[in-house]
Each structure stands twice: as structure tokens, then as C-alpha cells.
């Protein structure tokens, strides 16, 4: 199956820029997720790929076929793009049974009756809905409807699979099951997939690669691991997982090439290992994930003030089941920490590992 290439895609609704010159490529068989908060332009991008929305500018190609090219004015109508799409509302046709819903795309392709039936049964087995083929959509549960929608999108062997928040209408437990099930089917079929969601967990679990979007622009593209471990923007660090953010100023370069940051709320400088370089005096934001914060000493006694060690006062804690989440006070800053350890004392020593911190130039705005 061919690659999908999106280049310089731009779409405006009146004065509002929904998608602002974005580019990305989805490789053959890859599962790519467009992740971002609502209004970030992810659905508009997906609709542009499907041909349901005509972009103002840019290029969309699948292999050798040009779907859209603003330079030549080429625009392939949705029905000729051979994309399979699952909508947020599932969009099952209410006047057709499950079987008829799946048969419709094949009827349009004039597939002979026997092959049609064979193909539909094959797909219904795949989505585990064979016994329900004569039901109407409203007679099915949400999870079943979602699987019919996926079956309908797959039955005609589409070139691309496009999924628009297909799991957002399911309850938490079901969503988890549907997630692993979806991942399995996509792997089995090896179909190039673009998935749109605002749910970071979904994105991390399902994707080969994630494109994080915000206000029509791409913030970061990468594997789930790289996006989680080394976000390139505070927004990404905040949107995917949670992060502590501190404001500070670059003091200079310390030993071993680490930069030293003077934090606004703390008396002590922070040493951070990073590939980036900053001029001294630059205002920056430092982030660290709560689970990366380490407890050095639980007794609350005096400890070696080596490295990024800080004395913290425990403000409160929340029991999350597997872990605790603490709110700690270090000098004038609040630090969130997640750990399995139940802290007995009111005062502890914590460590902010210098390779677990990320530094970003602060927004001048």
C-alpha cells in the first residue's frame, strides 16, 4: 500500500485559520495519530484527506495519485478516493441492516452477489458481529455500532483507513477493550491508518507515530516514546501526560556541559543536561514529569545536598490506586510527584534528575 503525503495543507473558515500550512507523511502500513485539543484542526485535516472538505492550499497525495493540489487545481471527489472512514457518530445508515450497511459500498462497486456475501461475512467475522447481521443499527449497543462502522470502512479494501475519534462515545472500560482490538485488526490488515483523537492515552497506546497539533499547527511529530520522553514544547509536555513547569533564567554552563537554571521560586539553581544551548540570561521554562521526581530520603533528616537535591515539605497526597500523587512545597514552588512510596514524614529530600528535565525558551508573550 502506498504512502500518504500531506504537504503545506491550509484551510481557513472565514477569518479563522483551521489548518495552517502543515505537512506530514504516513508510511505504508503505518498507524499515525493526529493528537490535539478540540479546535486544533485535526478533524479538518482528516476531512481534507477524505475529500469531504476542500482545503484552500496544499497538496495531498497517496502513492502516485494526487488527491488534491492547489497549484494544478486537482481535486478528487471523496467517492473516488477509496478511503475507509469511521466517524465519531459512526454514521451508520439507520434504514439499512448491518449487512446492508456493509453491502452498500460493494453494490456501488458492482461486486457480484456471491463474492459480496463472502466478503461481508469475512469482515463481520473479523469485527465479531456475524450473528448481528440482520439487526438495524439502533438495535445494537454503542460498541457494536462502532464495530459495524469499522467493518463498513474495511469491507471494500480501502487504500487508507481514516478514523475520527471513533472511541470517544464509548464508556471507559469498553474503550480500553476497543483500543486493543482496533490495534490488533490494523496490524493484521497492515492498512495505512490516520487516527484523530484528543485522548493522549489512546494516541500513546495505538500509534506508530503521533502528530501533536495545536491551533492549526504541528507542534511535534514522533513515536509515542520520543514525544513522551522529550517533548519539544511546554504544550506537548503538558498535553501528553502531566508535567511540572517552573519559570527560570539561564545562569550559565556548569560542569559536564549541563546548563544551570535559576528558578524563580527556588533558592537553588538547577543543573540540566540538554542538547540545546541558551545564552545566559534567557528566560526559560523547565518541565519535569511527576513520576520522574525521585525521593532520596524519607526520614526528613539532613541529607547530602548533592546534584539537584531539594528539601520539600509534603502538602497533601492523593491515592491513585497503584501510586500516590503528592503535592510538595520547595521554597516557593509547588512540585507534583508520583511515586509508589508512602511517605511517612512531613519533610523529605527529593531529586530532580538532570536528564529528566526539559528546558524551553519561555514565551515572550
Amino acid at each position, binding site marked *: 500500500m502506498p504512502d500518504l503525503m500531506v504537504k503545506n495543507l491550509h484551510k481557513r473558515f472565514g477569518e479563522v485559520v483551521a489548518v495552517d500550512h502543515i505537512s506530514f507523511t504516513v508510511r505504508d502500513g503505518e498507524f499515525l495519530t493526529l493528537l490535539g485539543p478540540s479546535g486544533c484542526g485535526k478533524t479538518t485535516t482528516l*476531512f481534507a484527506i*477524505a*475529500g*469531504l472538505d476542500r482545503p484552500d492550499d496544499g497538496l495531498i497525495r497517496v502513492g502516485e495519485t494526487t488527491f488534491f493540489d492547489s497549484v494544478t487545481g486537482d481535486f478528487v*471527489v*471523496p*467517492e*473516488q*478516493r*477509496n*478511503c*475507509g*472512514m469511521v*466517524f*465519531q*457518530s459512526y*454514521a*451508520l*445508515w*439507520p*434504514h439499512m441492516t448491518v449487512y446492508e450497511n456493509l453491502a*452498500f*459500498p*460493494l453494490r*456501488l*462497486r*458492482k*461486486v*457480484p452477489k456471491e*463474492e459480496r456475501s463472502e*466478503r461481508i461475512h469475512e469482515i463481520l467475522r473479523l469485527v465479531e458481529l456475524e450473528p448481528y447481521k440482520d439487526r438495524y443499527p*439502533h438495535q445494537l449497543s454503542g460498541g457494536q455500532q462502532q464495530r459495524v462502522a469499522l467493518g*463498513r*470502512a474495511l469491507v*471494500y*479494501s480501502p487504500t487508507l483507513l*481514516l478514523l475520527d475519534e471513533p472511541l470517544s462515545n464509548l464508556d471507559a472500560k469498553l474503550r480500553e477493550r476497543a483500543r486493543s482490538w482496533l490495534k490488533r485488526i490494523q496490524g493484521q490488515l497492515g492498512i495505512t491508518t490516520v487516527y484523530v483523537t484528543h485522548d493522549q492515552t489512546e494516541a500513546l497506546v495505538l500509534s506508530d507515530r503521533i502528530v501533536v497539533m495545536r491551533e492549526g499547527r504541528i507542534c511535534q511529530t514522533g513515536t509515542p516514546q520520543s514525544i513522551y520522553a522529550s517533548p519539544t514544547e511546554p504544550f506537548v509536555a503538558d498535553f501528553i501526560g502531566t508535567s511540572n513547569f517552573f519559570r527560570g533564567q539561564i545562569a550559565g554552563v556548569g560542569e559536564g556541559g549541563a546548563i544551570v537554571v535559576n528558578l524563580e521560586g527556588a533558592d537553588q539553581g538547577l543543573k540540566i543536561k540538554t542538547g540545546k544551548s541558551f545564552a545566559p540570561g534567557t528566560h526559560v521554562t523547565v518541565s519535569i514529569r511527576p513520576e520522574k521526581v525521585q525521593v532520596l530520603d524519607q526520614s526528613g533528616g539532613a541529607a547530602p545536598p548533592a546534584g539537584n537535591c531539594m528539601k520539600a515539605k509534603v502538602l497533601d497526597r492523593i491515592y491513585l490506586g497503584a501510586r500516590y500523587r503528592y503535592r510538595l512545597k520547595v521554597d516557593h514552588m509547588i512540585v507534583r510527584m508520583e511515586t509508589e512510596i508512602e511517605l511517612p514524614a512531613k519533610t523529605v529530600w527529593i531529586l530532580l534528575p538532570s536528564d529528566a528535565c526539559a528546558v524551553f525558551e519561555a514565551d515572550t508573550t
Partner: protein
Amino acid sequence: MLVKEGTQRLAAQNLLGIRKEHLIQYGVAGLTACLVLAPMLPVVYSSFLDRPLYDAGGIVSLDNYIRLFSDPAFHKVIGNSFAFATLTTLLSVVLGVVMAVLIGRTDLPGRSILGEIMLWPIYLSPLVVAFAWVIMYSPAGYVTLFVKHRLHFQPWNLYTIPGMAMVAAVALMPIAYLYCSSSAAVADPALEDAARSVGAGPLRILFSVTLPLMRPPILYSAVLIFTIALEALSIPLVLGGPVGIDFFASFLYNRWLGGTQPDYGLVGAAAVVLLLLVTVLVLLQNSLLRNAARFVTVRGKATRPHVFKLGWLRWILFVFICLYMLGAAVLPMAGLVMQAFTKFLTPLVPPWQFLTLENVTVIFSYPAYVRSITNSILIALIGGILTTLFVALIALVAHRSEFPFRRVLDFLAIYPRTMPGMIVGIGFFWALVMVKPLGTIRNTIWGLMIAFGVRYLPTAFGAISPMLTKIGTELDYAARTVGADWWTTCREILLKLLKPALYSSFVLLFIQLIKEYGSAVFLVAPGSEVMGLTMLQFWVQGETGPVAALSLLQVGITMVFVFIGRRAFKEKIYA
């Protein structure tokens, strides 16, 4: 693999030539524009010409308007029309609101049945209502003579503007009732509870909370009724004719059909004046609807509004309503029946002494009269189906396509609301005269069908487009992505989901088309008679018996159709 081949074929198939959907979209829009503008343009143009459109060398001037406005008869027409419309509006709205509150919000006995009966006049042609009232309440009417005989004086005169307004109010009251009762039924009980909690009694609540909340539907239906009364033809013709009181529509009618040579210019100018007035009113109505809609559409609440306890008063009011129904509807209908089956109808002799079937046999012994019945049924059936299908296409193009002029189309589809039936008729008369290739349908029922269809485009559009907007766009998107082009999506998905709306549009159109005659006045010719005009013809000749029989027949056809329609079209409606 065959699926692959199918996909390739799908792509290849559509790459040939012009896209089918564009052909359909431009076709539908073009035809709509022609149909809506065809009657408009000639009317306006003829009003500025010094001679009929078909005579060469016409000179454009304001002459017709000057003549019209210096004609004292026209001054009277304006005065009469406004007096009639105002009085009609007042009577029907007051009646409608009282009935809506009593039936919707009180513990009146037999409310559900009364509410149903209240709406019946909607199915009746105003012409039939007018005939029925004349038979009973005109100076020579059955009830009038009966009362006069006892009291030795005549307590009322139907042939006056208040008399006519009373008849019109009976026919139009259901409109006010319909709008107000849907608002009364959904009134938020919390608002009334709030009033009660601060110590207001039931009457107080009624006047300071419930009624003010109904202001939008009251205003909206008032403007609607005023518009209808302004352009009404039947009541002015039947009741005003004998005593020479002229109104807009009867002025147009008489100036066109009365003289030896119709004064086309003057009629055109008067038509344009009426057109402008109605347009202003419809615009007013639209701006009111924007507010009214907010109140009317708050439906589907689980809580029922409180019922006002009337106590002993409920029986008195019940009797009052029954008397109203008896006087306004039952007696006139009974009059129609008596008139239809007797030679003479007079209170001096019991009706069974003159029993006869002659009136019915008269109708069926003249081919022209029989034809008017079959024509009306054909027009209502075929016209209803064709109009529904065409309007469905308009709605699809206007709401569910990328057609560049879809906004214009949306506007065009509801525009005929501003065109009184007479004017549609005059316009199509000119259009069919001037455009030579269309001449062949000029004197056929097809011409009438087109004119009627255009007149009721907005009715059908109003029945179809709300349902269409309730069908989620993702359903069409889904069809498009799996490989259906626009037209296939419309056919296989949207039209099938629209089925209930299409049925109700058809039923509505049938009811309207079978009683329509106003736009036929100028289009009718031997061979294309319709029931309404045949009745008028008998009426002018003083043949009240056959008129009554035909009226009953029309009412009967409508009732049977509504009954069948309700049974047959109870389609499964999908959520």
C-alpha cells in the same frame, strides 16, 4: 480480486464528461428560478405597459399606477381590504388564543376531542365555508329567516364587512389555535410555579405569565392571518359581490373578467401593489418567526404544564364552546347537506318535503362538471406527487450540496409565499401566452398543476426541509467516502430517510391542491375546469343546490384522503 476491479471501475465511470451531480443541481436550480420568476416578471412588466403584453410597441410608463390611485373605487378597495383583514385577524386571534388556553391548559371537559375538532376547518376550502354561511346566515338564509320569523326583525347582516370577517375568522381561527396551542402546551411550568410561589392566583398567573409567554405565536399567527385575509378571494366574492363591496382579490377578478376587454395594465398595477403589501407582511412575519421559533420549539419536556382548575365555570365554558361550534361549523355544514338534497330550502317548510337527488344528478349529467371533479383529483394527486418530489430535490440541492447558489435556491423555494394565488394565476397566464412553446399546456390541467405547484412550493418545502436538517451530515459523508457520488447518496440514503416527510408533504399538498381555485381563475379553459371554479360558476347562476352538493363532495374527498393518509403513511420513523 473483484473488489479492486470494482473500485477502479468506480473511478473510471465518473471521470467521463460532465459530472452528473452538476447537471442535476443546475437543472433543479434553473427550473426553480424559471417557475418562480415566470409569474412574477410579466405581472410587474405589464403594470408599466400601456397595452397588453402581446401587442407590439408597448410604451413603459407609470400611467397605470396613476390611473389606479386616482380611481375612487380603488381607494374603497384599500379601505375595505384593510378593515376586513384587521377585523378578521382580531376575531380569529382572540378566538384562537381563548380556545388554545381553554383546551390546552384547563380542566375543560372533553378537551382532547374539542382540540381535534377545532382544527377541522383547515381541511375546508374557504369557498365552501362561505357558501355554507350564506346558505344559513345571509339575509335570505335559513337561520336568518327562521329567526326573523320569530322576532319580526333581522338581528344580523352577513353582507357587511364585520359579517364577512366573522366567516373568515371561523375559517382562519385554526391557524391561531395551532400556533398558540403548541406554545401553550410546552409552556415551562417552572415559570408558573415561580409566580405561584410569590403568591399569584391562577387568573393572575394566566394574565401575567402564561399569556405574555404566548406573545410570539400570537403575533406570528396574527400577521399570517392578516396576510391571508388581505389576499382572500372567496369570501369577498361570495359575500361582498351581491352588495358591491370590493376587496383586493375581487377587484382584480372583476377588472379582468368583468369587462369586455380586460384592463390588463390596471390589473397589473393593482397586483403589484398587493404583491408589495404581502411581501412586507411576509418579511415582518419572518423576523417575528426568528423570535417565535425559540418559544415554539422548546418541545419534548417530560413535565406537563399545570392544568388550571376552572371549577363550576368549566361546564359553562364547555357549553359556550359547543354553542360556538354548533353555530360556526355544525349548522352551516348541516345547511350544506340540506341544500344539497332539497329543491328549496326554507324554514317555512320542513326540508323533507322537498327531498331530491336532482342537485347531484345535475353535476353528473354535464361532462364539464364531472371533468372538474376528475381534474381536481388528478391535479391534487399528480401535482402533489410531482411537487413533493421536485421540492425534495430543491431541499437536497439547497441543504446538502456544494452547489454555489444554494442560498439563492433556498430563498427561491420559499419566495412564492409572498405571491397571492391570483397573482400566480395572472403571471402564469402571461408566461404561457408569451412563451410560445409553452402554449400547448396553456389550457390544460398541466398548466394549472404547475401554477398550483409553484403556489405551494413553500408548503412542501416547510414539510421537507426541517426533517432534512435533522439528518446528520455524517450520514452523507459516510456514503461519499464508501464510493457513492452525490446523486447516489441522495437517492440511496437521504431520500429514503426523508420518506416520512415526503408523505406528509404529499398529504398537505393534496389537501391544498384539491381546494385551490384562486390561481386557476385566469388559467382555466374548457377542458381544464376545477371544482372550486365550477362551484363559483353555479353560484353566479344562482344554482345553490349543485354548489352545496359539489362542496360536500370536495369535503368528502378531503376527509377520505386525510383518513387514508393517516392510516397508510404511518411509516416507521427512524430515530
